[in-house]
C-alpha cells in the first residue's frame, strides 16, 4: 500500500476522480450513508481547494483507503453539521487542531473484508498513522474526528491517546461520536 497526500491543487486529476468515486462506493453504496451527492461521486461542502486528502493505493493503483483533513480554522464537519457531539462545548478553532473525516480503508476488491464494513485492521492502522503524520506536517498538534465508533476503537488499538468530546448520536442506526486525538 502506498500513501499519497495533497489538495485538489496538487493531486493528479485521475487520483482525485478515483478518490471521490471510491468514497461514493464505500460511504453511499456499501455503508448506505444518506448523503446529498451526485451519483458516482461523493463530495460535500468540506471538499474544496484547501482540503487535504490522504489516499491509499494498492499495487494495481486502485484506491483502497482515504482520509480527509481540515484545519479547524476553516469550516469543518463537526462544527457545521454535528455540533451536538460536543456536549455544549464550543467547536475548537485553532491552527494546530485539525479534523479527520471520511476515513476508511475498505478494499473494494477484497470480498472477505467487504463483510467487515468500513475497515480492515492492519491497513486501517497504517492509513491512520499516515493521515496523522500528514496532519502533523501541516502543523497539527491535536486532532478531532467525527466518526463511527469503529474509528475510536481503531485509534486505541493503534496506540493513540483519545477521548470522547461528548455522547454519541445514532445516525442511520449506528453511533457517531466526536473523538479528540492526542498527537
Amino acid at each position, binding site marked *: 500500500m502506498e500513501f499519497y497526500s495533497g489538495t485538489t491543487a496538487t493531486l493528479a486529476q485521475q487520483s482525485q476522480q478515483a478518490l471521490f468515486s471510491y468514497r461514493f462506493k464505500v460511504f453511499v453504496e456499501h455503508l448506505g450513508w444518506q448523503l446529498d451527492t451526485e451519483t458516482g461521486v461523493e463530495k460535500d461542502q468540506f471538499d474544496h481547494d484547501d482540503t487535504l486528502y490522504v489516499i491509499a493505493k494498492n499495487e494495481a493503483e486502485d484506491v483502497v483507503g482515504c482520509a480527509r483533513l481540515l484545519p479547524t480554522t476553516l469550516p469543518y464537519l463537526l462544527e457545521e453539521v454535528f455540533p451536538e457531539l460536543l456536549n455544549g462545548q464550543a467547536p475548537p478553532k485553532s491552527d494546530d487542531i485539525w479534523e479527520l473525516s471520511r476515513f476508511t480503508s475498505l478494499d473494494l476488491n477484497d470480498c472477505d473484508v467487504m463483510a467487515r464494513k468500513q475497515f480492515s485492521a492492519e491497513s486501517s492502522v497504517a492509513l491512520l498513522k499516515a493521515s496523522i503524520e500528514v496532519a502533523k506536517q501541516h502543523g497539527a498538534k491535536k486532532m478531532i474526528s467525527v466518526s463511527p465508533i469503529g474509528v475510536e476503537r481503531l485509534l486505541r488499538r493503534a496506540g493513540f491517546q483519545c477521548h*470522547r468530546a461528548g455522547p454519541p448520536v445514532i445516525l442511520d442506526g449506528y*453511533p457517531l461520536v466526536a473523538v479528540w486525538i492526542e498527537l
Partner: protein
Amino acid sequence: MSITSKPITNLAPVSVFREGILQILDTDIFKLGFIHLDSGVYQEQISSKSFKTNKTQITGYTEWLSTMTPTITLSWDWMLCPYSRPQLQKTGAFYSNLRLLEKNGKPLSEKHTERTLDELINRIEWSQKVDQFITQKYG
C-alpha cells in the same frame, strides 16, 4: 432505565476539565443514574486451524449515558460467551469523556478508573439489559 430512585445528595458538581472531559469524584459516580442508549453486534470470522473449521465469534458494543447533564458517555465492547453467566462479558477498556478524581482532586490511575467503572456497570446489570436489547434488535 435509570437506576437512581433516591434524591442525589452531597454530590460534588461535574466539572469540565478540557476538550469536553468531565471530572467527578470517584465516589460520586455511583450516585449517578445511567441509561442505555444503544448496543449492536460486530461480527468477526476466526479460523481454528486445529479443527479446520471457521467459527464466528459474536462481539459488539454498548453505549450508556448519565441521566444528569452535562452528559457522561460510557461505552465498551463485549463478547458473547455462551457458557458463561452472564453470557455477555466486557472486553477491553472503556471509551468515555470521563475523568475520575480522588478526594484530594488528583485523577485516579487508569487501573483504578477501570476497576471503578467495572463495578459501576456491574451494579447497573448491563449484561442482562444489553442481552435483552440485542435479542430484540436482531430478532
